[in-house]
């Protein structure tokens, strides 16, 4: 009985190895950038020099100056403040998509491997069908049905991203299922629920985090693209995709600060999340 109890407390065969793993400088840098971006999003109201929607008619489309470090837009709003404030909406959407699609994808993948049979075949069919929809088209359809804003595209993209996450997690879960520890758990009389959720899930958790990190970057691109074409978040909200689009006409007259500052914010964020996600994927696959 004591042995059973102790085995139950040791869920991951690779636990020790993970602690000994060397620090990955690139991953640490990328991770710090991600955390810094989240900090900007949370602290935006405190750190912005101006209110994001404060209009100054005496300073329209001005270049960078001491008063406005990144200049002002066509309505005389401070671009730096809007970029910093824009982190809130621009990161909130991807964060929700990531949470929802990862939860859904992991559930489908693990339930599919565990239950198998007709359930697995039917979910596989549904996933195959979802692959046929480009994420952006799915989000646009949600906008057609439920109107512009953040909620409809977020739900649509969460569904569109589920098969991508499910496929990767499923492949890993199938490999895990063949390992001896699963049999050991079953011999010890652990319930399927406990074996699947506590033991198997813990062994693929790094891969799940890695996939979620990658999904964050890609969904940011889709959501920003949607607001760029006018079907996502609506003005006067501060959001990066929308800012790139709003700066468009000023850019043609040589005032590129708004468009390109917001564009740079998008690119930096996506690079940071992608690099972190790829490092984590490589590490989790190295362990399997």
């Amino acid at each position, binding site marked *: 009985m004591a042995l059973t109890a102790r085995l139950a407390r040791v869920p991951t065969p690779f636990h020790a190895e993970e602690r000994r793993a060397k620090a990955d400088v690139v991953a640490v840098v990328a991770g710090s950038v991600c955390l810094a971006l989240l900090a900007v999003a949370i602290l935006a109201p405190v750190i912005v020099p101006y209110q994001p929607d404060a209009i100054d008619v005496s300073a329209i489309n001005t270049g960078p100056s001491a008063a406005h470090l990144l200049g002002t837009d066509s309505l005389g709003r401070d671009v730096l403040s809007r970029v910093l404030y824009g982190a809130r909406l621009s990161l909130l959407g991807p964060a929700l998509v990531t949470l929802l699609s990862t939860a859904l994808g992991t559930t489908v993948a693990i339930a599919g491997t565990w239950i198998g049979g007709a359930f697995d075949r039917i979910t596989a069919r549904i996933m195959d069908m979802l692959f046929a929809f*480009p994420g952006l088209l799915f989000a646009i*359809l949600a906008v057609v049905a439920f109107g512009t804003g953040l909620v409809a595209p977020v739900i649509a993209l969460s569904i569109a991203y589920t098969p991508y996450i499910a496929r990767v997690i499923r492949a890993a879960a199938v490999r895990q299922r063949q390992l001896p520890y699963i049999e050991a758990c079953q011999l010890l009389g652990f319930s399927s629920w406990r074996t699947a959720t506590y033991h198997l899930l813990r062994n693929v958790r790094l891969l799940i985090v890695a996939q979620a990190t990658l999904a964050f970057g890609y969904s940011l691109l889709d959501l920003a693209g949607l607001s760029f074409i006018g079907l996502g978040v609506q003005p006067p909200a501060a959001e990066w995709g929308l800012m790139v689009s709003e700066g468009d006409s000023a850019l043609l007259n040589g005032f590129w600060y708004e468009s390109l500052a917001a564009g740079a914010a998008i690119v930096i964020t996506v690079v940071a999340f992608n*690099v972190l996600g790829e490092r984590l994927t490589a590490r989790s696959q190295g362990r399997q």
Partner: protein
Amino acid sequence: MLRNARRWILTPVVTLVAASFVLYTAVSLQPGNPLTLLLGTRATPAQYRFLAHKLGLDRPMPVRYWHWLVAAVHGNFGDSLVYKQSVASLIAPRIVTTLLLVGYASVIILVVGVTLGVVGGMSPRLAPIVAALNGFGVAIPGFVAAEILIALFAVKLGWFPVLGTGQGLAGRLQHLTLPAFALAIASIAYVSQITRAAVSAEENSPHVETARGRGLQKARVLRHHVLRNAAMPIMTVSALTVASLLAGTLVVEFAFGLGGIGSLLDQSVQDKDANIVLAVGLILVLVFVITTTALDFAQYLMDPRLRLKAARWH
């Protein structure tokens, strides 16, 4: 044989029909009444009933879906509510622009992406530079690339026009150059990433070392031993990337004000022009399903080992 027919004919058709149902459901959930849009607010109830009957709007959704599907299979997508023209006549001229754009971008992606990837895979010195460029490139969305290219090449240097489609083939291509690069940048980086990985994996494989050990020329080893084996993943990713370009045109055409089917879809969603949204949405899904099926078939032909394996999910 029967299983193959199911895989390459039945499955794609079922996927398409299911996708068309999702499309139709989304569009029929759309708030607002098309009759009010057409008749204004001062029409009599009899006029409403007449038009509703004429457009088939008095029938239940599954019946309307079925009629739409049957007509769509025959190439009839109905009329646009806003333009008062048949949807086919609106799509026909625009699809040429979109296909030119996608074709132009595909050529750029394949040439630049594969070349960069092979260089990165062959030369250990250049590998980190190529990898860094790729990592950066995949994060540049089409609309940000568009603004950067416009700011640099159109506004600052004045080499290319900013808006419009241009006259004649040369004029069209000149107008499409910046959009094609904007559309291509992220995909170049992605194709290059996959090519680099595939080539460097083959570079270090025993059969390539053997070929080198036998004293074969470098170019011959690259062509016959490295690229031939690396071709499969490169082909797969290139085909999927090119198929996804059509969705990318939704954003890039908008950025450059190009009159293609991508910007037509954007505008029709704003206008609530249901028949256009349905037709363009169906075209996008159709192209994607055809490409993935053709890719699956090509892989089957190229690699006899795959003939033993089941569907792509497993």
